[in-house]
């Protein structure tokens, strides 16, 4: 399957802590308005996911200064039914996924039960993610040999962070709801 997904600015009003909702009030369009999503099966249980989005200024490293943020993208899937996407799950309704960051050698597996609860784990064996940038377009390619949550629920969420715009954490562009996976 291949489709263009319209993205929204992740709402800050519902994010934890007193600072982010007030310092970054919800306003304006997402910094990444859309992304092209391609999902293909890779063998009986595996997946290959391409995500491509406009990115004028790539950021691949953050170690050279105190105020740099790397480009990043994440894929999410609900573990259970009726799991909210926009808040990254909630108590007892976890989401899991994979996070690619331009400055990391390998992706990490993420598990969350709502905003602010993301736990990072080493990605399971064989999970890979590679990013490229060409002519103003960022592409991240994920290879996931076995992802039961995606195979079962057939729903995918995406999140994109533009490092040059200092997007990180809950400052991101996301799909407004789960995307049905038909592949």
């Amino acid at each position, binding site marked *: 399957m291949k489709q263009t997904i319209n993205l929204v600015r992740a709402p800050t009003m519902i*994010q*934890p*802590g*007193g*600072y*982010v909702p*007030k*310092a*970054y*009030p919800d306003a304006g369009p997402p910094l990444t308005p859309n992304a092209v999503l391609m999902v293909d099966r890779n063998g009986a249980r595996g997946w290959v996911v391409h995500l491509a989005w406009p990115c004028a200024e790539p950021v691949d490293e*953050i*170690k*050279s*200064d*105190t*105020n*740099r943020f790397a480009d990043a993208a994440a894929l999410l899937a609900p573990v259970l039914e009726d799991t909210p996407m926009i808040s990254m799950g909630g108590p007892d309704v976890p989401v899991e996924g994979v996070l690619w960051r331009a400055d990391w050698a390998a992706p990490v597996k993420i598990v969350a039960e709502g*905003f*602010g609860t*993301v736990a*990072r784990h080493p990605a399971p064996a064989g999970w890979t993610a590679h990013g490229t940038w060409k002519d103003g377009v960022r592409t991240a390619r994920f290879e996931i040999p076995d992802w039961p949550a995606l195979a079962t629920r057939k729903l995918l969420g995406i999140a994109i962070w533009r490092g040059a715009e*200092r997007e*990180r*954490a*809950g400052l991101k562009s996301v799909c407004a709801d789960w995307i049905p996976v038909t592949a």
Partner: protein
Amino acid sequence: MTAKASPTAQPPRQLAMVLDLNKCLGCQTCTIACRKLWNTDSGTAYAYWNNVETRPGKGFPKDWRVTGGRTADGSVKRGEIPDLKSGYGEPWTFNHQRVVNSDSNKGKEWLRPAESPDWGPNWDEDEGAGEYPTTNHHFYLPRLCNHCTHPACMDACPRGAIYKRSEDGIVLVNQDRCHGYRFCVEACPYKKVFFDPERSVSTKCIFCMPRVEKGVAPACARQCPGRLRFVGYRDDPEGPIWKLVHKWKVAIPLHPEFGLEPNVFYVPPVSPPKIGPGGRALAEDRIPLDYLKSLFGDAVGPALTVLCAEREKRKRGEASELMELLIAYDWNKNFKFDHGAREVFK
């Protein structure tokens, strides 16, 4: 983009520090004591949990007063993350070895950084303000994390990675939870959280937590040759903090308008007089009161009045509990913990 900050649940006790600005030499012993003890990671080579800046001046990081996440009425605003070059100042690399090995017969090599910096911590040391020799003035402002009663850093962290210890109110970063998002760096209006880009975590003053747990003063206070730092619990009527902050009301917080209720307090500097024609001292202060108010708020006037009155008393040969404490004849009285005081000399 501004809105009032939310209050914080408070620990039962609070450790605090008072610094008497009338006695600071600007020697940076505190800065180095702290740095050598806690902050030797290469990723934070630019950072100073404790710094001493000249006032009037830009401070460290540059212009920190206006780049934090609070407005002058204590509302939340979007702060900035200082950059390495123009904000903090890049750490410099020196030609130590070449200087040591250089031979004065063949031409002595002078100590100098390899970089060509145009900003760094303490860059404007001793510049101050006014005209020499009549109105020139400066004083030193040592700064550390204020272990605020309502910490902006803690409020800013979406991961709950910053917390205030229940036993003594010390504000700490749990680096295992920190994901390096730096909202704390943005939000702290004192700019006292530092990001380690190599480890991708935030770091900050820990009020020498392992030392104070054993009744030993923080390194910055313990090493201060000026004996100007006082440490103890705010609610201990026998301790120096309660006496200076609550009883005598001469120790006041920096930028109270941010609304964080700092637990580091300053005894403001009593100004020397301006010099008039013929080199005579005038009845006017060199350090404008309005400048001090811009740092310490309106409480600075009454605090200076008490300080001057007690100085006069002492000059007349009368006893003054306040002057006795501030002069630190008995250094034991600078520090008071619950656990005894291991390091104190008799």
